[in-house]
């Protein structure tokens, strides 16, 4: 189980996260929605210790994490993979080298399967990140995380910047991850349609706080104005 207890984070005098809590079991998908700049990426980075929280606790498989303890964070990051919003491939290496980088050779056996999941062709792997499209880079960065087979995977806007077909492919990939590897996924997204299709839980963040937490059905019938705006695809002008 992955558990966040009252996570708060302030940058300068701007409180980005205010007492955010959530629980995720393996095999579940939790979608985190919220307007741009609300702190969704910061939330994912605090889970893996890239941004230490000011207060609150992160528990992964009944173990409390300590972002200052680099040794422990190494094992935390093995259990909990993060796919960044931007692909963040090492640009001096080809895609293939990126996928193999720091990976135990035996884990490469499933490369073919994961490439199929995201529909990335093997011929592209000999190119450098700068020579392929953004979407291809993004798929490669997903495969890089899948290869490590973490128990929890945090996806930061996996479908943003992809065409509608790749979006469907990505959604199917997330389903596969949950079904086959029985991993738990947190998906940060602006794609309400995917959230309603896939999520076990939807969390809506606003001004650093969780303002809605519940099932997709209850999200659509929620009276919460921002939730309704997200469902209707409308813009909240008074925000």
């Amino acid at each position, binding site marked *: 189980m992955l558990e966040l207890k009252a996570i708060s984070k302030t940058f300068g005098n701007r409180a980005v996260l205010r007492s955010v809590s959530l629980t995720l079991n393996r095999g579940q998908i939790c979608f985190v929605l919220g307007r741009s700049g609300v702190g969704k990426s910061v939330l994912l980075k605090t889970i*893996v210790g*890239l941004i230490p929280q000011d207060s609150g606790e992160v528990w992964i498989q009944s173990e409390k994490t300590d972002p200052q303890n680099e040794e422990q964070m*190494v094992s935390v*990051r093995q259990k909990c993979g993060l796919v960044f919003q*931007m692909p*963040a*491939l090492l*640009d001096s290496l080809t895609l293939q080298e990126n996928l193999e980088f720091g990976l135990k050779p035996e884990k490469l056996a499933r490369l073919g399967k994961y490439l199929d999941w995201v529909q990335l062709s093997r011929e592209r792997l000999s190119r450098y990140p700068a020579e392929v499209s953004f979407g291809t880079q993004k798929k490669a960065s997903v495969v890089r995380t899948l290869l490590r087979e973490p128990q929890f995977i945090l996806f930061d806007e996996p479908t943003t910047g992809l065409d509608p077909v790749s979006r469907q492919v990505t959604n199917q990939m997330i389903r596969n991850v949950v079904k086959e590897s029985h991993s738990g996924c947190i998906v940060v997204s602006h794609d309400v349609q995917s959230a309603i299709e896939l999520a076990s839980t939807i969390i809506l963040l606003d001004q650093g706080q969780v303002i809605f937490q519940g099932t997709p059905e209850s999200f659509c019938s929620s009276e919460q104005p921002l939730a309704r705006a997200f469902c209707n695809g409308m813009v909240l002008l008074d925000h």
Partner: protein
Amino acid sequence: MREWNQLEYPALLFCSSFVGFVSSLTRREIRGREIIKQIYECAVMSIPVISFSLGIVSLMSVLEFSWHMRVVLRQDALVPAFSLVLTIREVAPVVTAMLLASRVGASIAAEIGVMKITEQLDQLKLLAVSEVDYLLVPRWLGCLVANVALTLISIGIAGVVTIFIGARWMGYQPGEFYNSLLLFTTGYDLAGALVKSLCFGTLIPFVSAGYGLRCALGSQGVGEAATQAVARSSLLIIIIDLFINSLWWMP
């Protein structure tokens, strides 16, 4: 946590790289390919500009010395040898290091800075790859080997240029030059030049990497990091040069 200042931070990076390098030696996990790539990029790519610059500098120094000596003493027999001593002790190590700092220092700072702002450094952490092993150690070894090699090449080129000018314009036989050279220059001078090049070859990558690793987010931050890396490395080269001179050659 305490903030390290601009001198402490490179020193800290050096210590962790040294420990990282020794432990990778004991584990026999040397990133040979990466190190060779760095040596190639630092050394081979810098040979033309450094050879050219050192050739010109030694030509100027011979002609300038000669002019002064003729005015004062009406002869310039010892000038080529004097000039070469100056080159070995000062010009070759310092000019080489300065040129390397402006070429390689800026590129190290900018490369690491871009890796930081595009979250590649965060990605290294996620992959449990130490940035010391992957980034710092190869760049350190690359710069170190490159700087020592380039300093020796510079001295060689300065020697050739000096002999050529001596023979062509001043009428001295290469043999005479060689004899007067032996009078003034010793292995101790060459050792001093090597000590300098080892120090500068270590200083440049760590100062530059320090600026890259701590660069502010955004392209302006990367530009600033590259500029600062060159400016600070050059300044430190001059200060350390003075320091080594006072230990090595002053009575």
